[in-house]
């Protein structure tokens, strides 16, 4: 049962990702990515991380990708200009390096010890994450708030033509 779900989610994620980079229309790319994120959220659930899965959907799919879509629409970006000759300057390189990287990663994973799922491990509760976050990771947490503040100010400064 789990294996089936895994296969469904994994293949969806990969398929959506591939579709994303092949779609000429940015809106479609965006939607494909949202789909991939959903599939990933499914994988997270399978991995016993429902909180992260929910966050993935709320933040990634529900906020970040909406932002992307918003910008695409605001700038009214259509499909890439077709009249300009497509010069795949980096395409051969992309294929070569991508293949190389994949190969390398495969090698690395083959070497990794094949861990089985630890027995009796239930899914992580929000409480555990919260405890960890506000004890061991309190400084990164506070720092991230500063980061977000900086991002807010930066975004406003950049996007507003006149403050």
């Amino acid at each position: 049962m789990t294996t089936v779900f895994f296969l469904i989610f994994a293949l969806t994620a990969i398929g959506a990702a591939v579709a994303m980079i092949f779609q000429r229309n940015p809106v479609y790319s965006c939607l494909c990515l949202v789909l991939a994120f959903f599939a990933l959220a499914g994988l997270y659930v399978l991995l016993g991380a429902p909180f992260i899965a929910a966050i993935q959907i709320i933040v990634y799919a529900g906020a970040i990708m909406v932002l992307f879509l918003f910008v695409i629409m605001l700038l009214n970006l259509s499909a890439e200009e077709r009249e300009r000759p497509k010069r795949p300057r980096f395409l051969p390189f992309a294929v070569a390096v991508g293949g190389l990287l994949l190969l390398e990663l495969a090698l690395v994973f083959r070497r990794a010890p094949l861990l089985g799922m630890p027995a009796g491990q239930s899914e992580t509760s929000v409480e555990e994450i919260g405890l960890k976050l506000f004890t061991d990771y309190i400084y990164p947490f506070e720092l991230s708030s500063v980061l977000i503040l900086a991002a807010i100010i930066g975004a406003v400064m950049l996007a507003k033509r006149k403050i």
Partner: protein
Amino acid sequence: MIPLSWYLVVSAVLFTIGVVGIFFRRDLITLFMCIELQLNGVNLALIAFSRYLPDISGQIIVFFVITVAAAEAAVGLAIMIALFHHKEHLDSERVNLMQG
């Protein structure tokens, strides 16, 4: 039971697709999305390790990655809007203001 390496393979494939996408596509928005895809590939690996080790820290790191990604998206998209107002296009191969 699904072995860890399956998740890692999916993670690697997603990451690689992101990498390939960066070379394959031209408009900056899509490049940005490819970067998000790469981040997610890494996130998957982190969560998988967090599950199999088991160590909850992996999930915490993913939490931070998502936070940072949100901030990054806000700033990055703001830059793109500014750039579009300036150049009327977002073609990565025609944006080379930083040329040395």
